[in-house]
Every structure is written in structure tokens, then in C-alpha cells.
């Protein structure tokens, strides 16, 4: 007699799978990654290649070591590697990338039982580990090899050169735009440049040209933070594919923008909204890191709380903290709060709230 298949209901399924989700995220990152390679050349390509290979290898190794299911090609390790390399500047020493990828996969993920159980975003853990281990390497920016634009638009640099001391210009223009802003503020507090000169810097940075450069990606910085436009495209793709929901990116970006506008400048309501959201990988964080399915809250109101607090942290760290960008740590810190947020945002089941009475 023929044997039939048996299972509980339901008997039909959507066509989603973990593999599809992960590769879709990778796909969404592709434009930004390609742009980074175009801008930084081989360095960027090698960075990505090494990080991805190391991550996939680490996945295999740790799965063997901890006797877990080996899931090499479902794209999750690939994504971790790619994301990690995109948070780092081009031209990182290869060995650092390998160590970072192994740490990210091994102790960011595998040690908790593999995909789905990690409380922290492994790619960011990898980055934070590298930042803690070799702090200098992580902020050693490289000029883009292709295209003639420096970290801030040439015009802005010209304005700066005419108003502030040369040595200050050098330190400012060689960094990323955000780094430049941070340095300008610290130079101001040190008394190297005065208030008017600070205004010139901030003015130059948040000028239309500069912001357009930021948006289009004509800047220096880490691989993934240079083109807000392409990241936005990728993010919209994810939204369209329903892999992420709007809650986290929208709330996160708005919070960062608004708070930067209020607190980011010299006085209140003096910062630049657009500058703050286009610079420093906010889009990368908003669409690809904070929304990481495993490490973000489960419920929509929780997602909004999470994104809001992360946004607050970004501005806090940028404005008052020791790091110029803050996206990485804001998300990591909020990752630690996710179980608590989940605990308090569980909605009441249908029938427990009297929504409409007769």
C-alpha cells in the first residue's frame, strides 16, 4: 500500500526560507558594495573577499567544533563577513579582518548555538572587537583611489583653507566628514580654532554640495558608509521584499536626524539634519544592522522603542562620546536591551483589549 505523508496542519507554506532571506539581504547590499569597490579599487574588493571567506570558513570550523548543523551556503555567514567588512575602512590588514571574522562568527554567534540564538549582531561584534583590539587601524581612512574627490568636497576644503590654520585643515580634511566635524569641535574646545572658524567648518560640511556628495557617495570612510543613496536603494528593496519592516529604519533615521539638529550644532537647533543622517553609516545601520532579524525586537512597538533609543545613543556618542560615528555601538548596546524590550512590548492577545464596544 502506498504510504502517504503525514503532518500537522497547515500543509501548504509560503516560499520563504532562511536562505532566501539571507541572500536577499546580501543582494540588497550589492549596489553599495560595488560602489565601494569602484571607489576604493582592489583594496575594497580584497577586504570584502577576505572577510567573507574568513566568515564562511569560521562558520564551518565552529559548527564542526561545537557539533552544530553546518550551514555554509545559507548566506548568513556570508552576510556577517560582508557587513563586517563594510563597517571597516578599506585597506585593513588582512590578518585583522580574518581575526575579526573568526571572532564575530565564533563568539558572536556559534557559541550561542548558531544562527538564531545570538543576542548581539555578529558583524558588529566583529567590528567592535577590531576597534577594541587595534583602534588605530579601524580609523585609518584611505583616500578613494578612483575619482578626485576627497572626504569633503573640494570647494568646502577651499573655504576651510582660507579661514583656519593649515595644520587644522589637514587634520580635518583627511578624516571622514563626521570625523572632521568631531575634530573641529574638539579643536574648538582646545582653543586651536575659534567659534567663527568652527562655524566655517560646520558650514562647509553641511553645505549643499557637501551633503550631495555625502548622499551620492563621493566621500571617504568605511566601505559601507560612503553612499547613502545606494544603501537607501538596498533598504527599499528589503522593505519591498518584506524582509524588514519600516519601524526600525524610519524611527532610527528620524531620531538621529532630529536629535542632531537639536543638539548636534554649536547651540540648540543648530545642527544639520541631512548631514547627520547621510554621514557615518546611519543608513547602513538603519537598514542592515539594526534590522538584523535575530537581534532586533520581535514586536513593532518594541522595534520603535529600540530604534529610538539607538538613535539617541548615536547622537550621544557622536556629540559627547569618544567615537565620531556611534552607529555600531548604539546598535550593539541596544541589542543587549532587546530581550527586556521584548518582555515589555508583548501585545495583548485579541479579545483582551476592548477595542470597540457595542
Amino acid at each position, binding site marked *: 500500500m502506498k504510504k502517504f505523508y503525514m503532518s500537522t496542519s497547515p500543509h501548504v507554506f509560503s516560499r520563504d526560507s532562511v536562505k532566501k532571506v539571507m541572500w536577499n539581504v546580501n543582494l540588497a547590499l550589492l549596489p553599495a558594495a560595488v560602489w565601494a569597490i569602484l571607489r576604493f579599487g582592489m583594496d575594497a574588493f580584497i577586504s570584502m573577499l577576505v572577510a567573507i571567506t574568513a566568515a564562511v570558513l569560521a562558520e564551518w570550523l565552529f559548527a564542526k*567544533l*561545537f*557539533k*552544530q548543523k553546518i550551514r555554509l551556503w545559507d548566506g548568513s555567514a556570508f552576510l556577517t563577513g560582508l557587513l563586517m567588512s563594510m563597517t571597516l575602512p578599506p585597506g585593513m590588514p588582512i590578518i585583522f579582518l580574518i581575526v575579526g571574522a573568526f571572532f564575530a562568527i565564533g*563568539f*558572536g554567534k*556559534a*557559541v*550561542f*548555538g*548558531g544562527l*538564531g*540564538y545570538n*543576542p*548581539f549582531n555578529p558583524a558588529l*561584534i566583529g567590528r*567592535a*572587537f577590531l*576597534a*577594541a583590539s587595534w583602534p588605530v587601524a579601524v580609523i585609518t581612512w584611505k583616500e578613494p583611489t578612483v575619482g578626485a574627490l576627497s572626504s569633503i568636497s573640494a570647494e568646502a576644503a577651499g573655504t576651510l583653507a582660507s579661514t583656519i590654520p593649515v595644520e587644522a585643515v589637514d587634520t580635518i580634511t583627511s578624516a571622514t566628514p563626521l570625523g572632521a566635524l568631531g575634530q573641529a569641535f574638539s579643536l574648538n574646545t582646545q582653543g586651536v580654532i575659534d567659534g567663527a572658524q568652527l562655524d566655517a567648518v560646520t558650514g562647509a560640511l553641511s553645505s549643499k554640495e557637501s551633503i550631495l556628495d555625502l548622499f551620492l557617495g563621493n566621500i571617504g570612510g568605511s566601505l559601507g558608509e560612503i553612499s547613502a543613496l545606494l544603501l537607501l536603494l538596498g533598504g527599499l528593496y528589503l522593505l519591498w521584499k518584506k524582509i524588514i519592516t519600516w519601524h526600525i529604519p524610519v524611527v532610527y533615521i528620524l531620531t538621529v536626524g532630529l536629535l542632531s539638529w537639536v543638539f548636534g550644532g554649536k547651540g540648540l537647533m543648530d545642527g544639520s539634519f541631512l548631514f547627520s543622517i547621510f554621514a557615518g553609516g546611519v543608513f547602513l545601520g538603519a537598514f542592515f544592522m539594526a534590522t538584523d532579524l535575530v537581534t532586533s525586537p520581535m514586536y513593532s512597538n518594541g522595534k520603535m522603542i529600540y530604534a529610538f533609543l539607538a538613535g539617541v*545613543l548615536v547622537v*550621544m*556618542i557622536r556629540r*559627547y*562620546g*569618544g*567615537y565620531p560615528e*556611534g552607529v*555600531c*555601538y*548604539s546598535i*550593539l*548596546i541596544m*541589542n*543587549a*536591551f532587546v*530581550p*527586556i524590550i*521584548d*518582555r515589555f512590548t508583548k501585545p495583548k492577545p485579541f479579545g483582551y483589549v476592548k477595542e470597540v464596544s457595542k
Partner: protein
Amino acid sequence: MDFGRLFVIAISAIFVNNFVLARFLGICPYLGVSKKWDSALGMGIAVIFVMTLASFITWIVQHFLLAPPSGKYDLTDILQTIAFILTIAALVQFVEIVMKKAMPDLYKALGIYLPLITTNCAILGVTLLNIKNDYNLIESIVFGISAGVGFTLALLMMASIRERLESAKVPKVFKGIAIALIVAALMSLSFTGFSGLIAE
């Protein structure tokens, strides 16, 4: 009174120099009492309570007994450790006795955590730091409260993550304290993001 300074002290104690994650104080209860949310919460509240009281009383002991304002003698070096630990031990016991009688409900909820606090180095740490940093009475109390809040925060985060990890397939050798330490490491790594937030 300088509210700005108090705010800085509080932020510093809660986030930047979190007692557990940055200073390594109170690790034993941090790892021991973070298996369940409920006990973590109870422990946390008890710690906040005792830390605040201890900050207050040891400040008085320091400034009126060990090194009185008259400046006639200064016993800080010789007696501080003994005096403070005795004070804390007595305080905890006193609170326990009073609570048991006067607030039996609260005692049921928190009482079991009280003895554990005597040997919690975070408490002694707070009181010693109060003196070391030359805080005045108000600042000491604020520092005590915020250190407790910071401790509680770390404890609650740990507890909620560990509850989630209950269902995770953590490798056998890492089960229990080892994985908790790894979580603490990653948490501490995240909290390095706060570094430089407040120059101390």
C-alpha cells in the same frame, strides 16, 4: 547644588563606568543571580536600596568618626576597611531585621537577597569610591543610587538574555557560567561605546 555635576555622576555610574561591565564589581551576584528575571529584579532593587543607605552612613562614619571635621586625627588608612565593612554588615543585618517585621511583604520579595549583599564587593566599592572621589554627602548618595541602578541594569540585561538562551543550543562546555561570561564580555564590549562620553 550643581545638578549638572550630579547628572554627570549618575550617567557615569550607570553607563560609562558601569560597576559590573567596566569596573568588575559585584561579579559574583551578577553571574549567580541572573538566571531568572524575577530574582534579578529583586536583587537589583535590594542592591540599590542598600547602596544608597550605605553611601549615606559610611559617609557619616568617614567624616565624623574616622576623619572628623575638627581634623584632630585621621584614621582613614588604618580603620577605613574594617569600619566600612562592619558598617555595611551591620546595616544589612539591621535592614533585614526591620524589614522582616515592619514590611513582611517587601521582605518576602527582597529579604532573601539581603545577606548576599554583605559580601557584594560592589557595596564596599561604592563606599570606598565615594571617599576616594571626595564626594560630598549628596553626591555620595546620588553615586550610590546610580551605581545600584547601573548594577541592576546590567543584571536585568543579563537575566533576560540568559532566559532567552535557555532554549538555545549552547555547546555543552559553555553551558552555565561560561556562556554568561561570554555574554558579559560582549555586553562589556558594547558598553565600550560609552567610553569617552564623560571625561573622568
